[in-house]
């Protein structure tokens, strides 16, 4: 599913990540690591958000040589999402729906599942951080990405929303979607069937 080769990321000569090779099959992967270890950097590289050296290939589609086709296959929910406050949640959802070519039925299902219909027509600047988080997770499930990256999906999320997230993930896994999740909170086997854990430490990664 995902291949990283000779991947390197530095900031002004300070090495953050160096991965010689990482091949991941389809599945659900929990990315673990201490604060500042490079988990979010890894997520952002795979999401195509930041430049890097090396290659990232998802289902034979290279991020560098075929960026649009690559991005069609991925979806990324940031740990602390920031959106223009003057937009309503619905405007944002419609925008992402259009870009990701998701149908109205799916958009409606996402709103209902995440129970965000009550505030989706309000401006985002009126949302609490938990509401913004729910919106960002809802957006990540729009369309039909092959890999969904969730950076700290559990923070600021209310307890009653956790089973919704887990159920959505299980449903998508059955459809062949893979997940990469960073979280400081542990998942139990009942919540998610993890394929493996990826530990980010010492500027590289290892599969646990």
């Amino acid at each position: 599913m995902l291949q990283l080769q000779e991947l390197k990321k530095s900031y002004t000569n300070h090495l953050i990540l160096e991965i010689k090779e990482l091949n991941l099959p389809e599945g659900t992967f929990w990315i673990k690591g201490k604060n500042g270890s490079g988990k979010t950097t890894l997520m952002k590289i795979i999401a195509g958000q930041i430049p890097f050296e090396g290659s990232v290939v998802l289902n034979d589609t290279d991020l560098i040589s075929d960026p649009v086709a690559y991005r069609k296959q991925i979806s990324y929910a940031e740990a602390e999402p920031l959106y223009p406050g003057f937009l309503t949640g619905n405007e944002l959802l419609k925008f992402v729906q259009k870009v990701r070519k998701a149908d109205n039925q799916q958009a409606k299902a996402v709103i209902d599942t995440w129970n965000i219909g009550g505030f989706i027509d309000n401006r985002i600047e009126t949302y609490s951080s938990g509401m913004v988080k729910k919106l960002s997770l809802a957006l990540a499930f729009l369309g039909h990405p092959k890999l969904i990256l969730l950076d700290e999906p559990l923070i600021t999320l209310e307890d009653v929303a956790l089973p919704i997230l887990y159920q959505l993930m299980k449903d998508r896994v059955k459809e062949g979607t893979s997940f990469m999740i960073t979280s400081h909170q542990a998942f139990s086997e009942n919540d998610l069937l993890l394929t493996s854990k990826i530990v980010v430490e010492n500027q590289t990664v290892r599969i646990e």
Partner: protein
Amino acid sequence: MKPIYHLILRTLVFPFYQQHAGLFFFIFFIMFGVVEASQLINYHQSLIYGMLSSTLFLLIVLFIWLLYFLKCFLFVAQKCEAPDYHILYELSSLSQAKTFQLLIFLYFLIFEPVILYSAVILILAMKSGFYLPALIIVLFQVSGLLLCSWVSSHYIHKRHLPAQFTIPSFKIPFNRPLFLFYISHLTKNQKVGILLSKLFSIFSIYIVLQSMDAHEDIRIPAIVLLFGLIAHSFLVFDIKRFEDQRLSWIRSLPYPMLSLYFNYLYVFALILAPEMLLLASSMGNKITLVDWIELYVFGIGFLAFIYARLFKFVENTDVYMQFMLWVFLGTFFLILCDLVPFLALGFGIGSFFIISKRHYLYESKVIV
């Protein structure tokens, strides 16, 4: 109290000058860059005597200063609202008089460019016996300083009380396309900036159109438009900052590069619409349709080009200012050589090349 003064300097004063470097560059250029060095003192003396002896001129200057004060006040208010600046509400644990004093210090420092120039005006006014205009200027500056400080202090201390009035807002009855995200940001957060740049460019174009003969050289409106475009440089800078802070999530969406590029062109086309409408009013009389199209494409291309360069050095305002100076001089020279169509094409191709090459290689280091 030293740490508090230090905090105000670091959190408000320095960021104010950093964020408005483009605007200051433009003002500095207009005030000191458009005349020969040998004529600089005479130029400023004429300006100052003009405002001291003409009530209308003085009122225009006071209006511009008022816009600047408003800009400063809105900057402080916006910062106070930002989640990462909530530390400023610690000031409410001081007495209101002490907070007021600190805010006078703050506003004095960010009004500094206006205060310094006013000091020169006052010296000349006193020497030449213009006592009434001098008194008006002093009263205007002092009341502006005190009023901004008092309102900000009141805001910090009384924010637990409900607002006494709110500006009504309306919902746009359609889903905004991407380019309107940028325009909405400007109309919401850069009202004074837009007003300043539009006042300058529309006023300049209007004056030039009035003095132009029928079907005169395109170079004259092109040069005036160029000054107007320079006045928009800080808006362009602000749009890039907005994109870095609030639209970074778009980078992981499957958005084709050509669509992204055209999206930027739509933004700049809309920004320049008022100037182009004004120029269109003279179409058939003073400029031709072809001239108008050339000027519009040139304007959009110019803004797209300076935007594209921000994918290289958005954080470094010094380099941005140097770049603006060189691009202004180069463009000015090429307009004089009657190469407006060439410039329009060059800026268009250049901006597309830079954006498509740099867009995903660029990484914002803006702290949000």
